[in-house]
C-alpha cells in the first residue's frame, strides 16, 4: 500500500503535459541531450518530421541523401564524441536502408538509436504500402529493439533505449513507432532509465581476479598487451598508459583500439592483425603472457586460432562476459569496465622495463621498415603510394586529425601509417567492413567535433557506394576533408585475386568517372593529384581550406598492402612480400 501511495505522489509531483506522440519523441530526444539527428523523411514518419520543423532551433536534423548515410553519419558522430548517435527514417525501404549501418554499429559496439516510422497499427501485417517487419529484420543486428503502438509507451521506451545503447558494451537500438501512435495525444512525463532488472551492463570487477592477473604480469618475462576499442569506450586511455609505462610492456592495438595511446609512444608497437605490423604479430607467438584489454580476438586479429599464442598465458580484461573464452581460452579473465579494472591493477603492478624483450620488437620493426615501410613512405618508383599520402596528411595535420577511413587497401594503409596523437581519432568500419562508411561517417564526426580536423579517406570503390552524401556536405556546409585514393581497382579484392586466384581479376577493375567534376558539381573545391611533385601543395591547400574540400590522388594501380597474414594462416606466418 505504501508503495502505491508513493507512486501516485510521484506522478502528481512530476509535471505532465498533454502532447502528441510525435512531440513526445522530440521531448525525449531533448531530455537525453540529443542535439543532432540524421535522417530522411517519408510517409510513416511525417508527424515526427512535422514536430522537428517546430523544434528546429533546438534539434538539428541533417538530411542525408540515403538512409544508410544517416546511420554512418550517426556512427561517426558517436565514435568521435562517445555520445549516442541518432538516426530517423520512414517505414519500409527507409527502415531497411538502415540495416547495414545498424549491423555495423552492432559489431563495432557503437551507441546508436534508430527511430523508424511504421504503418498505422490497424494495418500491421496487412502488407500495407511501405510496411516491413523492421523489428523482425533488425533483431539479430540490434542490442535491443521495440515497436511502439501507443503514444503512452514512448517515454519509457526511449529512456530504456538510450540507457541500453550507451551502457556496458554499447550498441544500436531500434524503435519502431506506428503512425497512429505518433498522432495520439497523452500525458507526457519523462524519467531517465537507470536500471533494468534483466540487464547487467557492467560486471563488478573481482579483486581476486585482478590480483591473479597482476601476478601473471609481474612474473612475466615477455609480457605483451593487445588493446581494443574497450579502452576508448571505457575512457581508460590514461589508465592503460599507466599500466604500460609502469610495467614496461610493449603494447599493440586492434584496428578499433587505434589512437587510444599516441602512435609515437615508445611502448606502442603498432597494430596487430591481418595487415598489422610485423613485430606485434610475430611476437604474439613468443610472448609468455598476453594481456588482452577490451578486445574480442576477432579472426582478423588472431589468424588461425590453433596456432595463436599457444605458448602464452592469456589474461583478458573484458566488459562482455560472452566474449570470454569465445575465441581464445583465457587463464585469467577480469570482467568489468576497462577503466575500473585497470585502476585496480595499477597499484599491484611491479615497475619493470624488459629491455631485451623490447629490443625484439625494435629488431623486427627494422625488418618491416626495410621490406615494406620504406617503400610505402619513401617510394623511389614513379607511381604515388597510398602511404606517402598518409605521411603528408600526418605532417600537415601534426597528427591531430581524426581519420575516417572506408574499407579496403587504403583503410589498412591509413590505420598503419596515420599518426594518432588524440584518442577517438580512428573512425572506421572494423568488424563489418562496410564500404561506403567513410564519407557519411566523416560528416557525423565533424558535426560532433567541429573543432577537430576530420579527414575522410576512401578508395575509388567504397567512395562511390555513398558518393551522394556529397550533397549533404554541400547543403550543410560541414567542412570535412575528403581524400580519394584512386587506383581504378577494388584494390583489396584485386590483391587477393593476384595472390590467391592467379591474377584472375574478376570484376575488380573500375572505369571511374571524373571525381573532381562530380565534387565540383556539388560546388566543392576539388583537386586531382597525379604526380608526387604536386602532392604536398595539394594536401596543404586541403588542410588549410576553411570549407569542405575534395582531393583525388591517383595512386599506383596494382600496389599491395603488406605485411599480410593470409586467411587461415598463423600470425607467425605473416608475409612481408
Amino acid at each position, binding site marked *: 500500500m505504501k508503495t502505491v501511495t508513493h507512486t501516485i505522489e510521484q506522478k502528481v509531483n512530476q509535471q505532465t503535459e498533454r502532447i502528441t506522440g510525435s512531440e513526445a519523441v522530440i521531448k525525449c530526444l531533448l531530455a537525453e541531450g540529443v542535439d543532432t539527428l540524421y535522417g530522411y523523411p517519408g510517409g510513416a514518419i511525417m508527424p515526427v518530421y512535422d514536430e522537428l520543423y517546430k523544434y528546429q532551433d533546438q534539434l538539428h536534423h541533417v538530411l542525408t541523401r540515403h538512409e544508410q548515410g544517416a546511420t554512418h553519419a550517426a556512427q561517426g558522430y558517436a565514435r568521435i564524441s562517445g555520445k549516442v548517435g541518432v538516426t530517423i527514417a520512414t517505414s519500409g525501404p527507409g527502415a531497411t536502408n538502415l540495416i547495414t549501418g545498424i549491423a555495423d554499429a552492432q559489431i563495432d559496439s557503437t551507441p546508436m538509436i534508430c527511430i523508424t516510422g511504421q504503418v498505422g497499427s490497424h494495418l500491421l501485417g496487412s502488407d500495407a504500402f511501405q510496411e516491413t517487419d523492421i523489428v523482425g529484420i533488425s*533483431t539479430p543486428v540490434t542490442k535491443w529493439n521495440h515497436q511502439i503502438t501507443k503514444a503512452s509507451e514512448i517515454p519509457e521506451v526511449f529512456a530504456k533505449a538510450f540507457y541500453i545503447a550507451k551502457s556496458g558494451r554499447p550498441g544500436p537500438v531500434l524503435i519502431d513507432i506506428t503512425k497512429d501512435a505518433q498522432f495520439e495525444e497523452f500525458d507526457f512525463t519523462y524519467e531517465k532509465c537507470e536500471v533494468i532488472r*534483466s540487464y547487467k551492463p557492467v560486471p563488478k570487477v573481482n579483486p581476486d581476479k585482478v590480483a591473479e592477473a597482476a601476478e601473471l604480469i609481474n612474473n612475466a618475462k615477455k609480457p605483451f598487451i593487445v588493446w581494443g576499442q574497450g579502452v576508448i569506450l571505457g575512457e581508460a586511455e590514461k589508465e592503460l598508459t599507466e599500466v604500460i609505462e609502469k610495467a614496461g610492456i610493449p603494447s599493440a592495438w586492434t584496428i578499433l583500439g587505434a589512437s587510444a595511446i599516441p602512435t609515437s609512444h615508445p611502448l606502442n608497437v603498432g597494430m596487430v592483425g591481418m595487415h598489422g605490423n610485423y613485430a606485434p604479430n610475430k611476437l604474439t607467438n613468443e610472448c609468455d603472457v598476453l594481456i588482452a584489454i577490451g578486445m574480442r580476438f576477432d579472426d582478423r586479429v588472431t589468424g588461425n586460432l590453433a596456432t595463436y599464442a599457444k605458448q602464452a598465458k592469456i589474461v583478458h580484461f573484458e566488459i562482455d*562476459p560472452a566474449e570470454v573464452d569465445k575465441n581464445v581460452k583465457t587463464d585469467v579473465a577480469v570482467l568489468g569496465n576497462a577503466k575500473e579494472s585497470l585502476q585496480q591493477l595499477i597499484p599491484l603492478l611491479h615497475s619493470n622495463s624488459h629491455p631485451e624483450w623490447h629490443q625484439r620488437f625494435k629488431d623486427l620493426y627494422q625488418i618491416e621498415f626495410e621490406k615494406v615501410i620504406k617503400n610505402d613512405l619513401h617510394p623511389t618508383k614513379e607511381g604515388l603510394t597510398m602511404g606517402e599520402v598518409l605521411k603528408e596528411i600526418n605532417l600537415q595535420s601534426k597528427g591531430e586529425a581524426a581519420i575516417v577511413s572506408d574499407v579496403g587497401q587504403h583503410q589498412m594503409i591509413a590505420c598503419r601509417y596515420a599518426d594518432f596523437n588524440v584518442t577517438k581519432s580512428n573512425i572506421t568500419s572494423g568488424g563489418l567492413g562496410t564500404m561506403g562508411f567513410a564519407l557519411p561517417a566523416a560528416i557525423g564526426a565533424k558535426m560532433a567535433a567541429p573543432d577537430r580536423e576530420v579527414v575522410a579517406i576512401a578508395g575509388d570503390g567504397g567512395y562511390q557506394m555513398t558518393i551522394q552524401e556529397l550533397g549533404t556536405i554541400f547543403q550543410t556546409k560541414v567542412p570535412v576533408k575528403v581524400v580519394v585514393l584512386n587506383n581504378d581497382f577494388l584494390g583489396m579484392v584485386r590483391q587477393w585475386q593476384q595472390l590467391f586466384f592467379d591474377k584472375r581479376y574478376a570484376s575488380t577493375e573500375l572505369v571511374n568517372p571524373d571525381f573532381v567534376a562530380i565534387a565540383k558539381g556539388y560546388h566543392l573545391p576539388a583537386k586531382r593529384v597525379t604526380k608526387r611533385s604536386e602532392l604536398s601543395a595539394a594536401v596543404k591547400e586541403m588542410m588549410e581550406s576553411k570549407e569542405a574540400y575534395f582531393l583525388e590522388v591517383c595512386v599506383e594501380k596494382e600496389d599491395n598492402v603488406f605485411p599480410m597474414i593470409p586467411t587461415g594462416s598463423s600470425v607467425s606466418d605473416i608475409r612481408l612480400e
Partner: protein
Amino acid sequence: MEEKQLYTVSIYTENNIGLLNRISAIFQRRHINIESITSSVSEIEGVSRWTIVVKLAEEQMKKIIGQIEKQVEVIKAYYHTDDETIYQESVLFKIKSDLLFEERQIQNIIKESYARIVTVNREFFVLEKSGRRSEIELLYRELSAFGIMQFVRSGRISVTKEEMKISEMLAAFN
C-alpha cells in the same frame, strides 16, 4: 572435436513480444537445429520460462548461454544434461472409437502404458500420455499398428534437480 550431447536450456525472461525471434536467432545464426522449444509462465509472476532442447558440444553450449544471457530481456539462462533434470513430454493420440471395441489389445496397451483417455465420442477417442520420449515412442509404435488419426507431441518441459536461484536474484534487484 568434443562429442555432442543433448542439453536442456532453461531461460528466465521478461514477457515481451519479439523475444522468441531474438532467442531463436542465436541458434539459427550458428546453424544449430532446435530439437524442441517451449515457452510458459514460471514460478515468478511476470517472468517467462523457456525450455529449449538442443544437441551440442558442451563448449558451444556454454558460448550460446553467454549469447542468450547477453540479451537485454533475459534474466538468466542455464543448461543441464538429462541426468540433472526431471523432464517430460506430452502427447495426444486421436484414434477411431470402433477400435476400442474391436481391438481388445488396445485396452491393454492403454492400461499398461498408463495413458489416459481424455474424451470419447462415437467417432474417435483421445488418448493422453506424459512421460519420457522412449515411453512415448513405444506407445506410438504399439498404437500405429491399429491406425492413428492424429498425433501430436509437445516440446520437453523440465525442472532441474538443483535449485535455480532466480527468485533470490530478482529479490536482490527489488
